[in-house]
């Protein structure tokens, strides 16, 4: 089966500094891939290359067979198929929640208002926030805003969803509600690329773990095998830093997964 997303020999630099080097990565439709690695290893940049927020210098990147690294790529079209959720959610503060959700469908995709609105409200209900339909972002908590940010991307009917450290800016008690939404998407079979520091979550939701360091992929593996028997020394060192979480009593674990 042809992969939905394929990076081949992918390279990106910021000036002199090479941020991504020789990335080879295939993602099948319906797969949930979690990218782990130390700060600065390029995982966010990799995600941002997939929807054109960053420009690449070399190699190949295919989405559903279509090559994206060329001068003719219509990134507006690509971005409707690749949704992205950011660490700081970035909801449009001057618009109500429902207007945030409808902006893309109505103005970019030119869909019918009642159809788009029905979808937006259904998705809002699914994340439990239908009553916040007419509220403004500043009236909502971080967790609520992040869930709405996810819905905003979903309203565009993307093939792929990218999550860039989406719980890193949240107060701990709000992390769960967001992770539950992502888990729901995974169960429905949506293709997800997730960058996160939430190790337990990664272990529970991923179909595959991709471990990166200094712009390269060092290891790819099934989550259970990655966490219990990492194959590279660097992965092992990385996981040891998180073993503090491992040695916590199991009851805490149950709440997260």
């Amino acid at each position, binding site marked *: 089966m042809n992969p939905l997303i394929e990076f081949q020999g992918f390279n990106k630099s910021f000036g002199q500094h090479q941020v991504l080097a020789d990335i080879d990565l295939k993602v099948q439709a319906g797969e949930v891939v979690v990218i782990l690695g130390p700060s600065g290893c390029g995982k966010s940049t990799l995600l941002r290359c997939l929807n054109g927020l960053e420009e690449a210098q070399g190699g190949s990147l295919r989405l559903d067979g279509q090559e994206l690294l060329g001068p003719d790529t219509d990134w507006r079209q690509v971005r409707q198929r690749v949704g*992205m959720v950011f660490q700081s959610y970035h909801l449009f*503060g001057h618009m109500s929640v429902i207007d945030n959700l409808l*902006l893309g469908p109505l*103005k*970019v995709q030119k869909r019918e208002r009642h159809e788009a609105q029905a979808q937006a409200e259904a998705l809002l209900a699914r994340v439990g926030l239908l009553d916040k339909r007419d509220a403004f972002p500043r009236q909502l908590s971080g967790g609520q805003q992040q869930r709405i940010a996810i819905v*905003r991307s979903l309203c565009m009917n993307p093939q792929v969803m990218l999550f860039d450290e989406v719980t890193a800016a949240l107060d701990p008690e709000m992390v769960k509600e967001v992770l539950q939404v992502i888990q729901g998407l995974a169960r429905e079979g949506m293709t997800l690329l997730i960058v996160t520091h939430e190790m337990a979550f990664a272990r529970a939701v991923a179909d595959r773990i991709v471990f990166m360091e200094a712009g390269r992929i060092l290891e790819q593996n099934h989550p259970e095998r990655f966490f219990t028997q990492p194959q590279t020394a660097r992965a092992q060192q990385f996981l040891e830093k998180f073993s503090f979480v491992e040695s916590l009593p199991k009851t805490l674990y149950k709440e997260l997964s």
Partner: protein
Amino acid sequence: MASSGIELLLVSLPQLARGAGQTLAISALGILFATLGGMLYGVLATLGSRWLNILLQLYLELFRAIPVLVWLYLVFFGLPIFFGLSIPSFWCAVLVLGLWGASEVGEVVRGALQSLPRGQREAGLSIGLGGWQLYGYVLLPQALKRMTPPTINIYTRIIKTSSLAVLIGVVEVIKAGQQIIERTYESVMVYGALFLFFFLVCYPLSAASRVLERRWAHA
């Protein structure tokens, strides 16, 4: 001494009013063009094109280095010579005020747009918004509150600077006042009236700008 100064002044009021109308017309048109031009400048300056930014900076520095009155003379005397165009001094004034005002408003708009979190632009792009849509639906509406108080201050300066148009021969309120003085010799009253006229137009704007700035002060 014939009739009292005030009586003569009252008779001259229509003439003064006509002059005031010209002043306000020059100011209003200048403000209109400055606003439109400034918005364009601000958007162009945040597109990230190095050549555009150099061009815009050149334009800005040109209007900062050369005082507005000098610009008025350059346009008034120079246009006929350089381009064979002879435009009435009214429109010379409007042109200069518009271009100068646009550079000032443009810098305000640019600053306001740049003060928005970068993520707003990225979030907008991520849902597929194109250039005009991004600015029209996301960036400019949010920058509006930050832009407004300084822009109102620039409007005040445009109105005050429009007074310089008398020096290139426009029959606006100062000229009207001077014509009245020639007849009535009431220079103190007339110039006093001119003082009052400009104050009554500009002070409400300054006050409004301050009120809005306080009300919309962001963290």
